[in-house]
C-alpha cells in the first residue's frame, strides 16, 4: 500500500491508500482557493521543469496539467508527440531519453498503450512520472478529480468544506458507473478511488462492455440499469470508446442508448440530489441526451474545473513534498 504519493510517481491508483488519496484531495482544496485569487499563481515549483508528453491527443487533459504546472510556477515543456515525428514503432526509451536530456524533473504522460508510463518510469528513475492516461489501464488523476468533485459537492450540501470531512462523506455512498467499462481507464481508476474511499461501487453495462473478469474488481455488477439509477447517489457515465472498436461490442449505438444511455426520461426520473458525472469528451446522444447537461446536478463542468487544483496537488506532492515531510508529522 502506498500511504502517500509524496515524492513518488503516480502511475496507478491500484495500491494507493485512503490516506494517500485524502492527502491529495486536501491539498487540492488549498490549491482550489489559489485559483479564486486575483493572481492565480504560487511559487511552489519555481525552478522545476515539467514535461508534458502526450503520445495520444487530449486537449483538455494536457491543458489542465499544463495550467496546473504553470500556476505552481514550474516551467513547462509541452511536447505534442502525437503530431511530431514520434510514431508507432519508436522506442519509448529513445523518446524519454531525448526529453530527459533537456533537463526535466517530472513528466506528465499520456499514451494509447497500457503500461507505457510504467515502462517510462523505469527508464528515468530520477524523474517523477505522472500518468495522464495509458491505454485501457489507468487514469489516476481523473479518478482523483472525480472524487474531489464529489467530495466538494457533498460538503457544500452539508454546509462544510471537504477538507473538514476527510473521507467520511464517501462512507456508504452509492456510486454507479455506467457504459463502456471494458475499454475505460477512467472506470478502472474511478472504481479503485471511490471504493478505497469507502463508497459502494456498482457497474452496469451491456455484457460485452464489462471487463473479462469484472469479478476481480472492487465493485458489484448489476444488469438492472433502471433500478441502479434509483439506487445511486452518484451516476458516472463513461464515453463509449468507439475508436477502440466498442461499436462492434453492441449491435447499434441506438440500442446502447436505449438500454444504457442517460436519456431525458431517465434523467428526469433521478432523485434531484443524484450527481451526474462524465469525464468527457461526451458522445452527446449516445451516453446521454444533450438536454441532460443543463440539469443542476450535472457535474461535468465542475469536473473540468477540479482538474486544475487536483493536478496542482499531484505535481506538488510528487515534486515538492517528500516522504519524510508528509509522514513524519
Amino acid at each position, binding site marked *: 500500500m502506498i500511504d502517500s504519493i509524496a515524492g513518488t510517481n503516480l502511475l496507478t491508483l491500484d495500491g494507493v491508500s485512503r490516506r494517500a488519496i485524502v492527502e491529495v484531495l486536501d491539498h487540492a482544496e488549498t490549491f482550489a482557493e489559489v485559483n479564486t485569487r486575483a493572481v492565480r499563481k504560487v511559487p511552489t515549483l519555481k525552478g522545476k521543469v515539467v514535461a508534458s508528453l502526450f503520445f495520444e491527443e487530449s486537449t483538455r487533459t494536457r491543458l489542465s496539467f499544463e495550467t496546473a504546472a504553470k500556476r505552481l510556477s514550474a516551467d513547462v515543456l509541452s511536447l505534442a508527440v502525437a503530431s511530431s515525428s514520434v510514431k508507432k514503432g519508436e522506442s519509448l526509451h529513445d523518446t524519454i531519453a531525448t526529453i530527459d536530456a533537456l533537463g526535466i524533473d517530472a513528466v506528465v504522460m499520456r499514451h494509447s498503450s*497500457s503500461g507505457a508510463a510504467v*515502462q517510462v518510469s523505469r*527508464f528515468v528513475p530520477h524523474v517523477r512520472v505522472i500518468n495522464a492516461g495509458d491505454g485501457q489501464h489507468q487514469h489516476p488523476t481523473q479518478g482523483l478529480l472525480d472524487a474531489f468533485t464529489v467530495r466538494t459537492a457533498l460538503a457544500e450540501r452539508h454546509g462544510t468544506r471537504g477538507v473538514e470531512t476527510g473521507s467520511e462523506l464517501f462512507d456508504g455512498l452509492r456510486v454507479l458507473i455506467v457504459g463502456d467499462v471494458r475499454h475505460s481507464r477512467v472506470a*478502472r481508476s474511478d472504481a479503485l478511488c471511490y471504493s478505497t474511499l469507502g463508497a459502494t461501487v456498482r457497474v452496469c453495462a451491456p455484457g460485452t462492455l464489462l471487463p473479462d*473478469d469484472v469479478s476481480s*474488481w472492487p465493485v458489484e455488477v448489476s444488469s438492472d440499469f433502471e433500478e441502479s439509477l434509483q439506487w445511486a447517489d452518484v451516476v458516472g457515465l463513461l464515453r463509449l470508446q468507439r475508436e477502440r472498436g466498442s461499436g462492434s461490442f453492441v449491435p447499434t449505438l441506438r440500442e446502447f442508448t436505449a438500454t444504457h444511455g442517460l436519456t431525458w426520461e431517465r434523467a428526469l426520473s433521478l432523485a434531484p440530489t443524484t450527481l451526474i458525472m462524465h469525464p468527457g469528451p461526451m458522445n452527446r446522444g449516445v451516453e446521454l441526451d444533450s438536454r441532460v447537461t443543463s440539469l443542476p446536478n450535472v457535474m461535468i463542468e465542475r469536473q473540468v474545473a477540479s482538474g486544475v487544483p487536483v493536478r496542482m496537488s499531484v505535481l506538488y506532492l510528487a515534486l515538492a513534498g517528500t516522504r519524510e515531510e508528509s509522514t513524519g508529522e
Partner: protein
Amino acid sequence: MSETVLIRGGSVVTRHGLVRGDVIVADGRVSELGEVLDAPAGATVIDADGAWVGPGFVDLHAHLREPGREEAETIESGAAAAALGGYTAILAMPNTEPTIDSTALATYVIERGRRAVIDVVPTGAITVGRLGTQMAPIAEMAEIGVRLFTDDGTGVQDPSMMRRALTYAKPLGVRLAQHCEDEALAALGSMNEGALSSRLGLLGRPALAEELMVIRDVELVRLTGGAMHFLHLSTARSLQMVALAKAEGLNVTCEVAPHHFTLDEELCASFDPLFKVHPPLRGVSDVVALRSALLGSVIDAVATDHAPHAEQLKELPFDEAPPGMLGLEHAAALTHEALGADQPVRLFELLSRGPAAVAQLRAEDHPRISGEHGGVLEVGSHANIVVFDPQVSWRVDARQLASRSTNTPYEGREMRGRVRATIVAGHVVVANEELQ
C-alpha cells in the same frame, strides 16, 4: 581433422538410469566405454566428475532470424548459444524474412548452417509466405531433408488449408507443426486473458484460442490420418486433449517451452515486454500442470521457442512490442529444475531422444546432419554428446549470453545445472562451460 576425446569420471545416461563410466570418442564416434579408461595419446580430456554424460540435446524450435533480422540473431550466433545450452542439433524455424518456403531458401539455411558449431536443420513453411493461402513446395523441401513444416509465429488458420496440407504431407513421411492459437480470438491480445489482463487494461489472448485450435487439429488428424506436432502448448487442457488423441492412437506429438512451465502471467504486471510471448505466459495453475506433466508421457519434448529480438523492439509499449524471449542457454537448467529431484533419464528424453524422434533426426541416412542425434551412447554411435552438471549453480547475466540479443526473462535468476561440455560429431565445441 578429428579429435580424440576422453570424457572422464561422469555418469553415462542410459535408457534405464545412470552408469558410472568413462567415454572415449575418436573419428566422430564413441570408440570405447568403460568404468575407468586411460587417456589415449593426444586426447583432449574432459572432466565429467559429478556430471551426466548423454546424447546431445535437440531443439525443435529455434528462431535464428537469418535471413532477414541478423541484428537480432544469425544462424551462427544462435548455434553458438545452442552449443552452450548443450544442443548438438537445432531446428531453425522458417518465419524469417523471407519465409523459408522453397528449396532455395532451405538450402540457404543448410549452407549457412555448415559454418555453425552444431547441426542446424531447416524447417519449412506449410504455406507460401506463411500467408495461409497456398501450399509451399513441401515435397521438394522434403527431398533435401526438411522433415518438419510449420507456419509458426501464427498458426494455419483456415481448416481446409490445414486439412489439405495434412493430406499432402502424409505420404511424404513428414510432419506438420502447428502454432495453436485461433487468431480471431487471440489476434489483438498481448498477454493471457483473465483477471490480471482486465486489471492491467491489456487485451487478452485466451487459453481458449489455443485449446480450440488443438481440438480442431486433433480432429483434422483423425480425418486425414496425417501427422501433427503441437508447438509450445501452454495450458493443462491442451495437454489433456493431446493425451486423449494419443490414447486413441492418432499420430500426434507435442512440446512445451521452459517459460511456460517456469514463469507465470504475474510478470506482465511490470509491463516489461521481456515477458510478452505467444502463446502468453499463463496463470499459476497452468504452470503447475505443465511442470507435473513433464514427468508423464504426454509431452514428447521440451523446446525453447528461442526468439531473439533487438533491444529497441523490447522498449516499445507492451502491446506494440514483438512477442518472444530467449531460451537456448537456459532450457536444460530450467527443465532440470522443473523435474524436481534428479531425473536424468527423463531429462534426456525431453531434451534429446523425444525431440530427435519428432524431427526424425535418428535416421542414419539423414542427408544434412552429422550422424545420429538423440540416440544411445554405445560403442560405434555418433559422438553427439553433452556433459551436464546437475549440481552447479549459476546466475543469468544477459550480457554474458552468446546470443546476439539480450531479451532473456531470466536476468539475475539463479539456475541449477549447467552444460559443461558439448561434443558435435566428435569435436569439442564447448568445454569448461565455454565455447572452444
